[in-house]
């Protein structure tokens, strides 16, 4: 390497960034340009290995990358400029942190000599994003850039996945240095997530499982994150043990909704049988879930009689909310594999017939029932029809946040992992539309549907323009109840039905709006319109805004009222005015 000009590893910081993306197998990048990232955009312009998707707002880029990541298992990559570009990323970064989604976000920064000067479009990006990333870096020297880029990908995708930010000042993008491909030594020696579970703990777990009379498996998003293999092993374990299984919102699809042992989702709007099984079980196997407060209800009455086994890759998830008896730290797939092996070798299928009979009586309560209506479309019915129409198709569902999200979780059946993208931990309205974009970019021929609410969809509506530009035929299926339904429901149940600012006043005409964006607008007003319009939506190979007019005041049940335990659920059949008032009044008095 006598002549520096011929060293292929000599390049600018901007070129290193694009090169690192290629070296990490990145095919798509979501971003928005600005002064502090122009050198990188210049590099992007001069190559074709990495395709850049131009969004309309940086938040859209973030959620698109999340959808991309969640549906592929690969990291989502984002490029934004300094200042407002970076601050617009705060919501998706936080969202990704809460739901453990691997994102690599590259932000431009003002030149190093201006940092701290309140320069134009300067903000303390690493300071602002420190609490909403798994880790972040400000790269002040070109010498550090290749190592940091590689470490960023490693940190985002290993252990408990999460978002990372690499903040690169403009002078570092211009500077020339020596690039190196990814290597082991790029990573902090202090970062070594544990993958393999402790053998003794695994034996203890198997002993508990083998002796269980009223077992339940409770799985979460961690199983999805651990890859398809983890879902496969989970299914094998369910088959080997014959145990009932429920899952969190984030874990839907790891075990098939059509599977014989499926209890439905658990938690605040979970099924009666799932929550009762959690409450009355004697052995609980929690796989890749974190005993979140939407799941546990009141913690002091949570599953009082059970021995709890908890598999998680993140030690800080263990004993955070609920004390467990057998913690196992490790990767879900790895630990499930070990448990399965020991179980098959040493245990026989426990007799849980009586338990299944008990569960059948809970199931018979039919907690997801709703009254049919021939005049107005009920949201639950709309989702059921949508589900029926998409059966057998290569379908991916994203959602916004609200009642429609819960109904989607309750009524859309997922038989495979990575098919369900929703903002669980942060509950970000506006997530679903851009997430659908990201999913469609990753799966161009799939049917990608955002089950949306009329209020949520307005938060990131601008991304329809992106969908049109890149010919991404996403379907935005709006359950339009003309309310922030979930807010209205809480106001009705807890605040004397004073509907303070939860009415969606001055709603745009979504069909005309579709027209204005250059996509397709469809509408269904009567139950009889629904199937035809859904069929049409699936048929058109363009982005669609579907205005599905649904009953305005429908409530989402069943429900665990606040301050109540799993066995104090409010069921739809019983949710008349008095029962509801009593349930919630009791909740208030109780705690």
């Amino acid at each position, binding site marked *: 390497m006598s002549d520096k000009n011929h060293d292929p590893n000599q390049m600018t910081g901007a070129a290193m960034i694009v090169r690192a993306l290629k070296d990490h197998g990145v095919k798509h990048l979501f971003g928005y340009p600005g002064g502090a990232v122009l050198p990188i955009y210049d590099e992007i312009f001069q190559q074709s290995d990495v395709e850049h998707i131009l969004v309309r707002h940086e938040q859209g880029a973030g959620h698109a990358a999340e959808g991309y990541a969640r549906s592929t298992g690969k990291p989502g990559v984002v490029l934004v400029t300094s200042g407002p570009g970076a601050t617009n990323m705060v919501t998706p970064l936080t969202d990704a942190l809460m739901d453990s989604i691997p994102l690599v976000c590259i932000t431009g920064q003002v030149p190093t000599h201006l940092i701290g000067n309140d320069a134009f479009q300067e903000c303390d990006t690493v300071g602002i994003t420190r609490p909403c990333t798994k880790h972040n870096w400000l790269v002040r020297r070109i010498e550090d850039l290749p190592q940091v880029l590689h470490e960023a990908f490693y940190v985002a995708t290993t252990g408990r996945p999460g978002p990372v930010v690499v903040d690169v000042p403009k002078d570092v993008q211009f500077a020339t240095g020596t690039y190196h491909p990814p290597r082991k030594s790029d990573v902090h020696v*202090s970062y070594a997530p544990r993958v393999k579970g402790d053998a003794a703990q695994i034996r203890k777990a198997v002993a508990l499982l083998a002796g269980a009379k009223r077992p339940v498996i409770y799985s979460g998003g961690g199983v999805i994150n651990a890859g398809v293999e983890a879902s496969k092993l989970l299914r094998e374990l369910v088959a080997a043990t014959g145990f009932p299984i429920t899952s969190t919102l984030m874990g839907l699809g790891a075990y098939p909704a059509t599977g014989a042992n499926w209890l439905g989702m658990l938690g605040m709007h979970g099924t009666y049988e799932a929550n009762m099984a959690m409450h009355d079980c004697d052995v609980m196997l929690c796989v890749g879930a974190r005993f979140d*407060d939407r799941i546990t209800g*009141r913690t002091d009455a949570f599953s009082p009689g059970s021995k709890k086994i908890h598999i998680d890759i993140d030690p800080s998830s263990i004993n955070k909310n609920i004390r467990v008896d057998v913690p196992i730290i490790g990767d879900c797939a790895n630990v499930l594999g070990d448990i399965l092996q020991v179980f098959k070798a040493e245990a026989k299928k426990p007799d849980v017939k009586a338990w299944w009979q008990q569960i059948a009586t809970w199931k018979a309560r039919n907690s997801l029932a709703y009254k049919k209506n021939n005049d107005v479309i009920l949201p639950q019915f709309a989702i059921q029809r949508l589900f029926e129409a998409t059966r057998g198709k290569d379908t991916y569902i994203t959602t916004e946040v609200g009642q429609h999200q819960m109904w989607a979780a309750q009524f859309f059946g997922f038989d495979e992992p990575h098919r369900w993208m929703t903002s669980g931990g942060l509950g970000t309205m506006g997530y679903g539309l851009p997430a659908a974009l990201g999913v469609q970019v990753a799966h161009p021929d799939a049917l990608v549907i955002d089950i949306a609410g009329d209020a949520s969809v307005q938060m990131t509506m601008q991304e329809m323009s992106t969908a049109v530009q890149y010919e991404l035929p996403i379907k935005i299926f709006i359950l339009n109840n003309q309310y922030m339904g979930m807010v209205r429901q*809480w106001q009705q149940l807890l605040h004397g039905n004073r509907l303070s600012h939860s009415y969606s006043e001055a709603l745009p005409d979504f069909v005309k709006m579709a027209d204005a964006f250059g996509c397709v607008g469809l509408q269904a007003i009567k139950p009889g319109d629904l199937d035809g319009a859904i069929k049409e939506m699936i048929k058109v190979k363009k982005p669609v805004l579907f205005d599905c007019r649904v009953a305005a005041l429908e409530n989402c049940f069943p429900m665990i009222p*606040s301050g109540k335990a799993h066995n104090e659920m409010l069921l739809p059949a019983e949710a008349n005015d008095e029962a509801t008032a009593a349930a919630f009044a009791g909740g208030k008095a109780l*705690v």
Partner: protein
Amino acid sequence: MNQPASAYFLEEQKTPNETHTLSVLVANEPGVLARVIGLFSGRGYNIDSLTVSETEHQKHVSRITIVTTGTPMVIQQIKHQLDRMIPVYTVVDMTLTGRSIERELAMVKVRGSGEPRVEALRLAEAFRARVIDASTESFVFEITGNTTKIDQFIDLMKPLGLVEVSRTGVVAIVRGPEGM
């Protein structure tokens, strides 16, 4: 006891708090202290005392000593949350080792004359505090010891003309030949 209308279950704390001293070895890089402090403020943990300094220059390792208070479950959380930070090498709960030595250094300025001044000097001797500055009407004492000893000394100085105190916060190390 009445829970307000809330979407969250509001639980009262029943378990008593404990005080623990944690030693944290970290990579000495920009922002590492901000991360640690941000963790404590962001998650509502207490910091009773925090000290930090580079301890192995060649390896860029710093040692942070934190004294914190919380329920046993919260203390365990704090350790896990610290441990999963990328630049953190190890977290040791010094209190749980049962063999930890803890020291703090304080500089204590006392102003006075006559009998109180003599009394301050006498007490300082009893506490093995050194005089590191003196004027005709003041002393600055340097005192090392555990937190209780220093608190006690400061309390005694109050009526004798205590002006101000500067304390390092707690540092800790485990007895015996092994390192952490």
